[in-house]
C-alpha cells in the first residue's frame, strides 16, 4: 500500500487514492467518539456502512462515512477503524448518537459479528430469523456445513 495521507481538520487519513481507501484508526472507544464528533463537524454527514473484519484473535470494526452536502468530501468513502480483541460479545461504543443513519447498519453488524454497540437505542437482530441459534455467522470460525444432495424414493 502506498503511504500517502490526507489531512482533514487535523485528522490524518491513510489513503490509497487508486483503491478509494481513506482510513483513520481509532485507538480506543473514547478516541473513536472524539474522532467521529470532529469528522461530523468537518462535514461527513451520513454513514454508508458499518461492518467488521475477523482478524483471528481480534475484530476490526469499521464505519464508512461520506458527505452529501460538502462538495470536497462527497467524493470520499472515508472509514474509521477500531480494533478490539475478539470475544463472544465484543463491546464498542455506538456512533448512532453522531450519525443516526448508522442505526440499522450497526444492528446488522451486531447479529453477524457479535459486536454489541453500547448505547445503541435498539440493539436487536435484524435479518436473521428469530429461531436462529448459531453464533455470529460472518465470523470466520462459523462452521459451514454442506447439505448432501438427497433424492427421495
Amino acid at each position, binding site marked *: 500500500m502506498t503511504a500517502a495521507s490526507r489531512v482533514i481538520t487535523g485528522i490524518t487519513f491513510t489513503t490509497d487514492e487508486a483503491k478509494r481507501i481513506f482510513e483513520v484508526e481509532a485507538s480506543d472507544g473514547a478516541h473513536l467518539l472524539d474522532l467521529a464528533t470532529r469528522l461530523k463537524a468537518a462535514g461527513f454527514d451520513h454513514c454508508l456502512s458499518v461492518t467488521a473484519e475477523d482478524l483471528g484473535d481480534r475484530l476490526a470494526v469499521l464505519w464508512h462515512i461520506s458527505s452529501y452536502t460538502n462538495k470536497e468530501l462527497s467524493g470520499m468513502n472515508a472509514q474509521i477503524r477500531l480494533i478490539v480483541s475478539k470475544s463472544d460479545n465484543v463491546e464498542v461504543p455506538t456512533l448512532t448518537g453522531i450519525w443516526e443513519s448508522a442505526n440499522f447498519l450497526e444492528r446488522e453488524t451486531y447479529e453477524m459479528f457479535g459486536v454489541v454497540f453500547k448505547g445503541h437505542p435498539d440493539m436487536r437482530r435484524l435479518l436473521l430469523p428469530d429461531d436462529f441459534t448459531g453464533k455470529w455467522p*460472518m465470523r470466520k470460525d462459523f462452521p459451514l456445513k454442506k447439505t448432501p444432495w438427497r433424492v427421495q424414493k
Partner: protein
Amino acid sequence: MAYEEGFSIEKNSVEGAKMSASQDRATTANLTYDELAGLKAERELVLLIGPAHPGSGHMKIKVWMDGDIIQRVDPDIGFVHRTTEKLSENRLYIKAIPIVERVMLPDTINANLAYVIALERLLGIEPTPRAQYLRTLTSEINRITSHLYGIGLYGIFLGSSTVYMWAFADREPLIDLLEEISGARITYSYIIPGGVRWDLPAGFKERAETVLQYMEARLKDYEKIWVKNPVVMDRTEGVGIVSKSDAIRLGITGPNLRASGVDYDTRRAKPYAAYPNLDFNVPTFSEGDCYARLLQRVEEIEQSIRIIRQVLKDIPDGRIISDDIYSKMNPLQKRMYEMKHRVMFPAYMASMRPAAGRSTASVEAGRGEIFFYLVSNGDKVPFRFRWVTPSFLNLPFFTHVMVGQHLADLPAIYGSSDYFPPEADR
C-alpha cells in the same frame, strides 16, 4: 410471537375493550405504576402487515397506532436474506457476479458494475474507453427499467392496475435492447473485470433510437393518465414529507434523497465509467413528499434517455476488454474475439488472486448508492466482501417518515420510496 400479538388485537376489539374496562374499574386502585402503564399500552392498536405483501416482496411491518395515526413502525426485514456476503466469501471472485445480481433483479447491471469496479481497483486493472461507454449505456438502460418497475409498483400500491400494466409492458423494449447486447433478459452478467463481454450488435443504434422515441412518447401518456391524475396528486401531495435536513440525517439515498432537495448524485460525486465525459442534469425537488419522489423518477428517466443518446453518438472505437485480460487469452479465444467481438473467459478469470489490499466502490443504482468494500488477503476468494444496497439505506422511510401519518397513507409512502425487500435483505 405473532399469535400473541394477534390476541392483543382482539383485546382491542369493542367487546374486549368493554370487558377489560369493567375489570379495570374494579382493580385499578391496587395497581402499581407499571401495571397502569401496561393498561394504557393495551389501548394502543398493534397491526401486523405481511410477510406476504401485496407490494414488491416479503417483509413484515409492525405498526403501533392511536386511532388511525401511526405512532411507531418496526420494519421486520430479513425474510429474503440470502447471505450474499458469506456466500461470496467462500467462492472465487468471478462467481460473486451472479450472486450480487440475484438480489437486485430490476437493476442487475448496476449491482454487477459496482462489484466489478471494486474488484478492478483491487486488481489494478483499467477498462478500455469503449467498455466504459458500454457500461454507462447498459447502466442507463437498466436505470430506466428500474424506474419503470418502481412507477408500476407504485400504481399497484395506490390501486391503479393500469399504470402497473403499462410500466411493465414498457420495460420490454428496453429489456429487448439489453438482450440484444448481452443475450440475457434480466441477469446479464455482462460486466467483467477489464471490460464487458459483448460488443454492440450491428444496427443497434437505430433500434435503440426507435425505443428512446417510443419511451419519450410514452412518458407523455404517463403524464396524462398517472402523473397529472388528480387522484394520484390527492393521495401523494403533502404526504410523507422528508425535509432536506432529515434526509441527510437519516442517510436516505438515491432519487428519494434528491426529491428532498439534496443535490447529490454518485455519478457526479464519485465518478466512474464514462460519466465524467457526459453532459447530464441531476434533477432535484424541494418538496420532499411522495409526489416529488414520483416526479423525480420521471425526470430521471428523461435524463437517462439523454445520456443514452450521447453515449451512442460519442462511443469510441477500440477493444471492449483491457489488454491485461486480452493478453491472458489463448489463441482460440483471441481468434474468437477478433471474429465476433465476444470475450471468452481466459483461465485467469477462475484463478485470479488479487494482491492483498482493500478497495471501496460506489455506484448510483436505480434506487440509490450501492457501496462495496472488498478485502483481499491474496487468496482466490475474497477475505471480506461487504456491500450495502440502497433499499437498506432507505429503511428510515418506515421508522421515521411514516410516523404521524394516517394508516391509509402507509402504502403511498412505502411505494414512493421504491423499497425493494430482496435488495435490502441481500
